[in-house]
């Protein structure tokens, strides 16, 4: 299902950020930007696990 792809892709992106940090590729500006992105992804995935679809829809609607 496409929905699932979205979350699995988010997880993959998160691992990608970890990898970039591990190999010390990022300068201080990129670091801040990637940190923000990572926090978004983490919240997204954690919410998926612990909230029902309706709750998630509500949250997404609120943040728009």
């Amino acid at each position: 299902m496409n929905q699932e792809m979205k979350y699995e892709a988010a997880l993959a992106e998160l691992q990608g950020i970890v990898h970039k940090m591990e190999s010390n590729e990022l300068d201080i500006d990129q670091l801040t930007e990637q940190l923000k992105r990572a926090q978004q992804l983490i919240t997204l995935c954690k919410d998926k696990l612990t909230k029902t679809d309706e709750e998630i829809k509500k949250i997404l609607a609120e943040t728009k």
Partner: protein
Amino acid sequence: MVRDAIEMHLPDEYWVEAELSECREHSGHCYMELIEKDEHSNTPVARAAAKCWRQTWIMVKPNFERTTGTPLRAGMKVLLRVYAQYHEAYGFSWIVSDIDPTYTLGDMARRRQEIIRQLKEEGVFDMQRELKLPLFAQRIAVISAPNAAGYGDFCRQLEDNAYGFRFSITLFPAIMQGEQVEATIIAALNSIFATTATSPVASASIPSDLPPFDAVVIIRGGGATADLSGFDTLALAENVAQFPLPIITGIGHDRDESIIDMVSHTRVKTPTAAAAFLIDNLRRVSESIEQAETFILNYVNEHIRFQQQHITNLTTLIPTLAQRLLSDSHHRIELLQGRLPIAIERRLTAQQHLLEQTALKLQGFDPKLLLSRGYSITLFQGKAIRNPQLLKPGDEIETLMEKGTVTSIVR
């Protein structure tokens, strides 16, 4: 007369192989119809009635069920110990005194092998295991009997899981024992698949070719072993094997796997184990998220702290370096200052030396020194002359000596 003839010619008990075309219990007795089929055409060529009276059946039945795991049922091949009986009112019948369950078991096993072989030949045996269970498998379609304790346990476990994971469970009811197993489970699978087109997620922009679930769970419940033979059919296995979602089977038994277990994506022993499996799947994802989070926070903190430290270091370093530079310069100036007078002194002394030496040397060249030694200088016309050829007779010359001068005339 017929009765006597039969009793005379068939006095003993015999072991008979047959297929059961009918099997009914009534008043505690078991009434069967035995047939023999033609090997190639499958049409019956012989038929006979058989009965097992209650006092025998009471012992034979549990023994049979315990060994084969299933009650006696039409369609099975059996090995019976029988004796002949002819009753004027009821006609001819075999009376069953014993059943050999291992014969039936052997036949069941043979049939299972045959089904497995066919599934492999069709190429569907491994299909389920090529599917991947989604990382976020939370939408579960359950095939089970609605009142089964197993189903209740399964739901409760998912709802009360310690991690706070959320699942959404949809029941597609079926009958999980007896002869209805195959038909009702296949019907349930079809119902699940039918939700594909009507899934709310499917729309013009996001077409969906799968049902709106992440996995299917087939469970039955609560402990009791009996009657798994319904799960060993070819049709059921084909349906499960080719289903587009991963199927987890938790049929609950301790003997060999059913065929449905062999073709499903994952096999677990009980409904609770199925719930645990799904929870564990999410837990692994949750763990990897936490690990990533921890790593990133630590790394960023470290990095920032490192940079700050670096800047602090530089900040304290610069005045220190500057200070050192200044004091170095001062030091050098002082050194030079100290060396200056000495250098000057030495130079003067050296020059003085040179002068004295030159003076001495010059002294050495003083003509008076020569004169005092007895040499004389001859002057002609006021100039010193060294070549006598230049003089002619009558010239006047002066001769300088230490103590005076003499004037002479050349001869």
